[in-house]
């Protein structure tokens, strides 16, 4: 078993719980030992960097300093979230490139009796570990139920293949790592031209029209290629494309219903794990139809209450169209 220092990031415990659950389910099969960094803090996402420079880098570097203390032979930090991965990598990279930044950050870290030597850790994304350390042959050998008959749009988003300080990816704009992984699982990966286009990032909260257009492009692209699913490697991308799909549809009067799931969830299915253990059912756009194509049924997650559909409209009298009357009879 190879041991890695693991930085989950805030989303894995909340909005991207399905990513976390599916990762836990597949890591045993893959022989991954993920040692969580004790008492890690938020990386600041894309917000802190735009407010204060030294505090933003100190916030990120507290995690790197804690990871070094815990290192025990492993020097590699794995982050499953793109923004976390980039922030950790960025802090390490810029503190090396600009030693004054590293000095100031370390002065600040001293207030907490911490220290980080820039360049002493390797910061890598989970997909990179699976492709380059575990290897596709190994992954292929663990497949019990090949995902034949399902068409998947492989979607990486921005911050994994770019800016790519350590040149780990096959291409910055059209890398094929995720495609090859999906093929190894038996799924059909479409050659998705938008695979590293932006999901909108934090724009749903700032400039909704900007965000909805970026989301629309991706949904439209996946729809054009008749993808059953869009697979992502990032909690933010999943959130924007899944949770804001309904609002985007309303904004453009479209009706896309593209399920957005994490690549680890598909890996779990191919390894024969129970879909319930893989976080299926947590997505807002249902995967039911897509997964029925490979003969799987998706349960509701524990604790989730299904709202009973109202048989007829109640409450205030509202004007209705004849078609509505028919539907509610």
């Amino acid at each position, binding site marked *: 078993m190879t041991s890695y220092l693991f930085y989950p990031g*805030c989303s894995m415990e*909340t*909005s991207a*719980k399905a990513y976390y659950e599916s990762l836990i389910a597949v890591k045993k099969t893959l022989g991954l030992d993920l040692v969580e960094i004790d008492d*890690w*803090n*938020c990386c*600041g*996402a894309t*917000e*802190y*960097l*735009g*407010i*204060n*420079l030294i*505090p933003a*880098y*100190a*916030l990120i570097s*507290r995690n790197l300093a804690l990871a070094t203390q815990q290192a025990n032979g492993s020097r590699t930090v794995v982050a499953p979230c793109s923004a976390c991965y980039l922030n950790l990598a*960025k802090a390490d*990279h*810029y503190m090396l490139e*600009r030693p*004054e*930044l590293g000095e*100031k*950050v370390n*002065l*600040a*870290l*001293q*207030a*907490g009796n*911490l220290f980080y030597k820039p360049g002493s850790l390797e910061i890598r994304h989970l997909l990179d570990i699976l492709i380059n350390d575990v290897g596709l042959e190994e992954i292929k050998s663990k497949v019990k139920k090949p995902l034949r008959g399902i068409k998947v749009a492989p979607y990486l988003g*921005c*911050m994994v293949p*770019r*800016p*790519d300080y350590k040149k780990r990816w096959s291409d910055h*704009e059209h890398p094929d790592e995720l495609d090859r992984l999906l093929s190894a699982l038996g799924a059909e990966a479409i050659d998705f031209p938008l695979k590293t*286009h*932006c999901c909108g*990032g934090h724009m749903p*909260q*700032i*400039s909704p*029209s*900007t965000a909805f257009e*970026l989301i629309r492009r991706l949904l439209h692209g996946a729809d054009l290629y008749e993808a059953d699913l869009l697979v992502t490697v990032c909690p933010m991308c999943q959130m924007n494309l899944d*949770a*804001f799909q309904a*609002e985007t549809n309303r904004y453009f009067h479209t009706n896309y219903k593209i399920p957005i799931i994490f690549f680890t969830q598909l890996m779990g299915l191919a390894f024969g794990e129970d879909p319930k253990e893989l976080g299926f*059912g*947590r997505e*807002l756009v249902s995967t039911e139809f897509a997964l029925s194509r490979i003969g799987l049924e998706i349960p509701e*997650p524990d604790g*989730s209450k299904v*709202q009973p559909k109202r048989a007829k409209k109640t409450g205030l009298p509202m004007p209705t169209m004849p078609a509505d009357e028919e539907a509610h009879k």
Partner: protein
Amino acid sequence: MLANTAPQTTNPLSTVINPNLRFLEEVSGATAGISRLEMCIQCGTCGGSCPSSTDMEYTPRSIFAMLRAGLREEVLSSNTPWICVSCYHCVVRCPQEVHIPDVMYTLKSMAIRAKLYKDATAPDFSMTFVDMVETYGRSFELGLATRHYLKHFPLRLPSMAPMGLGLLSKQRMEITPHRIEGINQLKAILQLAKELEAIE
């Protein structure tokens, strides 16, 4: 910030007469890493690669020309850095390898300090997010979303309610924030970091 490390080769008198003469150097010096902003050749690859440039008042290329021209107020009050989605398309295509999104981060922080931004939505979102992180050590989505949407997008709340309920019922949003154990350690680090930043 890191401004004190910028090259000190110019006649100090000139900046006394007009501090905007060295605006580009000031921005470059305050950016993490080596920004390479001085290397921009105005080719426009950045704006052409930008997925959100259509919503920007000035494309990144224009902003870099304006920096060089010392148009401080125009640059810091434009919406350009706030519309940047940090997708890094421009960075990997820029023939001069300018760290464009990092320059945008610098412009945001300068706009906040100079209070020159026109629309408070984006700065408020960042500051609310940071406020949560400084209080708990982790992000707190429900608190952030509630505070932000009530203030800036109250009209979107009805159409967003199903999504919020969906996320809650599928246990994708926590009701209470998670506070890290070392929150006091983190606060001490950030306090000192802010003091260090204030020493220019």
